[in-house]
């Protein structure tokens, strides 16, 4: 307890974990499509996108682990704001951060933990997230934190393809058959209430926005709405027939602070089962 932990480092760690967790949880969700995609090429597409996402989250977890170890943040020093409140680890690694943190320690967006549903729902979830990620990384490239800037520049190239692919699918399904159109409308209605959270900075985020480390997500909303609106227009999805996707819907939040929907616990029990049961198991 003698070590004074720099508050801004803790905020940076929490923020990095938030970014990594969102990618990891979407990875786990998307990976369930492996071998089940509608056709082979699209099965390969969604799994390749997922590979990019896990690669990005590995870079982020490695960075968070480095910061945690450098600052010697351990269980014994746990405070209310410690990123490793309950994790039973002495030395943080990318694996311990992914496999040994509890539900309340995960800071992912609620959007990414929502169920795969049908292909339309998976597409809409990916589309909402990829457009958001694109705008976020675009700004983060100029972060005052060199490592985050580097990860953002690298990831942005990958996300550009994700936006393109998911936009094309939104148009194909929305402007497809009556059945696919109806399924799109349903997916949008299901997922729209989880989009508001993306633009609400968490407390740990606000502090580092001021320092020029994290981009201000509240400023990304307008551009995100425009891009999503443009693609929806092309996909013949209108607000009147879409169940008010752009209207004043109640927006859920809390994921960034560890308050999740009931779905996350099930995801983590699948994801973490092996490491929890056979501690330290390796391939």
């Amino acid at each position, binding site marked *: 307890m003698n070590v004074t932990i720099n508050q801004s480092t803790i905020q940076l760690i929490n923020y990095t974990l938030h970014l990594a967790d969102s990618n990891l949880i979407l990875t786990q969700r998307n990976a369930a499509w492996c071998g089940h995609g509608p056709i082979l*090429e*699209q099965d*390969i*597409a969604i799994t*390749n*996108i997922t*590979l*990019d*996402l*896990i*690669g*990005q989250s*590995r*870079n982020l977890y490695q960075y968070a682990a480095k910061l945690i170890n450098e600052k010697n943040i351990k269980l014994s020093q746990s405070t209310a704001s410690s990123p490793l409140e309950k994790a039973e680890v002495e030395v943080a690694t990318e694996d311990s951060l992914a496999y040994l943190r509890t539900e309340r320690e995960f800071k992912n967006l609620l959007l990414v933990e929502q169920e795969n549903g049908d292909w339309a729902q998976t597409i809409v979830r990916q589309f909402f997230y990829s457009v958001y990620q694109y705008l976020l990384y675009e700004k983060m490239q100029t972060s005052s934190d*060199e*490592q985050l*800037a*580097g*990860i953002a*520049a*690298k*990831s942005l*190239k*990958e996300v550009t*393809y994700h936006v*393109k*692919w998911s936009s094309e699918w939104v148009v194909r399904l929305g402007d497809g058959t009556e059945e696919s159109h109806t399924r799109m409308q349903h997916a949008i209605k299901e997922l729209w209430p989880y989009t508001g959270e993306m633009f609400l900075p968490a407390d740990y985020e606000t502090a580092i926005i001021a320092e020029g480390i994290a981009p201000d997500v509240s400023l990304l909303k307008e551009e995100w709405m425009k891009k999503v609106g443009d693609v929806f227009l092309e996909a013949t999805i209108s607000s009147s027939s879409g169940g008010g996707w752009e209207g004043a819907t109640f927006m859920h939040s809390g994921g960034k602070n560890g308050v999740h929907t009931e779905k996350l616990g099930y995801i983590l029990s699948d994801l973490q089962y092996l490491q929890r049961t056979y501690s330290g198991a390796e391939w």
Partner: protein
Amino acid sequence: MQILNENKISDFKQLESLKVQPQEGFKEAIWSLLQQVPDPEIPVLSILDLGIVRDVKINEDEIEIIITPTYSGCPAMDMISMDIRLKLIENGHKKIKITSVLSPAWTTDWMTEDGKRKLIEYGIAPPKMQSDISDTPPMCPQCKSPDTKLLSQFGSTACKALYQCNDCKEPFDYFKCH
């Protein structure tokens, strides 16, 4: 006897000077060993053709190889690190450090012209330069027809897209511009 001793002394001196300043051409020798390390997924290309190796540094008695991943999730990176290590060990180098850097982010513009030629011969269409913003699809690596169409943005690996030739009808991989 005296001659032998003198030889020993000069050998010793040479070794001493080696420690301070690496032999002329030492770095070049390391680079040419790296040229022999193939990419695990596209073995026709070496890791130098791909532009994965960013630098070689000689730190006292240690060789440091600086590499950068093509894609964040490229599963070949761990294998590439191991292959580099093995190649250097095979050639008598013991202290090796491999450092992975993310910035500046890898781009297909770093691929060598020789690498692009080898890709075509292998049946993969090489990436366009980033400065090329035209909509022209890649040329068919089989029949060289310019009339091709995109089948999927994502191909057999993260770095490739799937195309088909409208003339010879062959599907082929295109190394995506990145």
